[in-house]
């Protein structure tokens, strides 16, 4: 992990795209401006963080901007990790897709879209991945209720369809 000073140095190099830094429990996080995400990731790749370990979403409900996307980058030579985070407003949850530069992001961006409703601009195939295609809502959001999902057995499928129309 870069130490607290190292994190600030990285921030200086990246310039205005970085809004803030967090150093918590020896883990370094860069909070970036959503439009600059691709540029920041490319610059970090040039610094050696060339492996994207994970891409996942998080919901900061009830705060706004509410939806977060987290990119975990890894430098395999120095065994160094850095977290890049951005937050978007739930009214316009659009983030530029990084799938072109990082092929691993493909399925993971689809999962974030499925679970949180973050739209990835430029993603080659942005469809739901875990939930059924006709599912409504984004279940991993904090205000999405647990339970209350009707279980449709074959015997009352017709009734259920009727009620929906």
């Amino acid at each position, binding site marked *: 992990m870069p130490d607290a000073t190292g994190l600030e140095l990285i921030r200086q190099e990246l310039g205005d795209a970085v809004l803030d830094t967090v150093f*918590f*429990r020896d*883990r370094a*996080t860069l909070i970036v401006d959503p439009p600059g995400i691709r540029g920041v990731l490319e610059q970090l790749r040039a610094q050696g963080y*060339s*492996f*994207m*370990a*994970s891409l*996942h*979403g*998080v*919901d900061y409900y009830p705060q706004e901007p509410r939806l977060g996307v*987290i990119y*975990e980058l890894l430098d*395999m030579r120095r*065994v160094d*990790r850095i*977290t890049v985070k951005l937050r978007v407003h739930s009214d316009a949850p659009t983030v530029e897709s990084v799938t072109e530069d*990082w*092929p*691993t992001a*493909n*399925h*993971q961006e689809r*999962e974030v879209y499925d*679970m949180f409703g973050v739209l990835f601009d430029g993603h080659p195939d942005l469809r*739901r*991945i*875990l*939930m*059924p295609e006709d599912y409504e809502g984004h*279940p*991993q959001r*904090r205000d*999405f209720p*647990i339970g209350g999902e009707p279980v449709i057995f074959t015997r009352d499928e017709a009734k259920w369809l009727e009620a929906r129309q």
Partner: protein
Amino acid sequence: MSAVETQIDGRETTDELLTLNFGPHHPATHGVLRLLVTLQAEVVRDIKPIIGYVHTGIEKTAEDKSYWKVIPVVERMDYLAYYFNAMAYIGAVETLVGVEVPKRAQYLRVIHLELNRIASHLIWLGTSALDLGAVSIFLYCLREREMILDLFECSSGARMHTRYFQVGGVIEDIPASFAPKLREFLAIMPQRADEYGAILNSNEIVLARLRGTCPLDAETLLGLGVTGPLLRAAGNPWDLRKAAPYSSYDDFEFKIPVGTVGDNYDRFAVRLAEIYESVRIIEQALDGLPEGAHITEDRKVALPPRHELATSMEALIHHFKLVTEGFRVPPGEVYNAIESPRGELGCYVRSDGSSKPARVHMRDPSFVNLQALAPMSRGSYIADMIATTAMLDPILGGIDR
């Protein structure tokens, strides 16, 4: 489709493409995985994996449970590597809370993790061999796995999804009968692995289906986020146990098996070799098992011993608070990664200061590795795709969560 090969085995084929729906209920998909395969005659041109059939919303469920009650839930994600799921999650929570894990607990964790790795590799070996036309080995593999499950039962009372790891250590110390049983297993396992190697390495059909099929270079694999035995088979010795040791892995001496060309045979050979290394690690951990507590003394996160409840009011209060509300975790976010049998298993936990996690996300290696199936199998025969799926070792419980 520009560079379509028009000849297969010397015969002219058409440019006509056939879309074949493979799965979700098919024995060779190792779970409820559906593959939309585009074929030109028998050559795979494209694969679209369709997943989500066993999505159970574990990450959502975890948000509604106090931290220590999440452990049995996350264990059920990757159902062959339950200790690893628990370890990834617990490691993240321990980092958030800032709790020290006693050395003995770390060693006990290593013993169980490596036993679990062997068990997972045995299931992989048995089911993969089934796909490759070697039926008997499945029964042999389950025989050894049974010994491991008996050991798990001995230490925790449950054979699968044991809930043995707790925040701050392990739930109970191992009973006196555990070590002799484990030594018995450690003496047998390398011989058995030798036998498996001998059986499969002299099986013409298996070799023909593995050697030189569906290779992929390390650079492409890294771009796709692939880790674990698949990456090591392509010659990149990346292993978190060595690179970023957790739970005292730096105390043990072991080698990282790597392949050379990254074909299906290397993927097979690397996993088989890992079984021996896991045995070595367990031997060292058992020999050097330090004395001391098996769980942290910090009563704010770990349950007090049962006998204290009868005599100590404070212990009773702690017990009551832990069982009803659970412990509170300082706000923050942590990503903790460990090396599971399938690659980097990361767990992201966000805490908002309450006793329930605000977000738990598992970066499951199967989910990420599945993306490599299409680039691996493109341009190969459909039979090789079956072998590749087997060597990919996808666990659908982990993919769908």
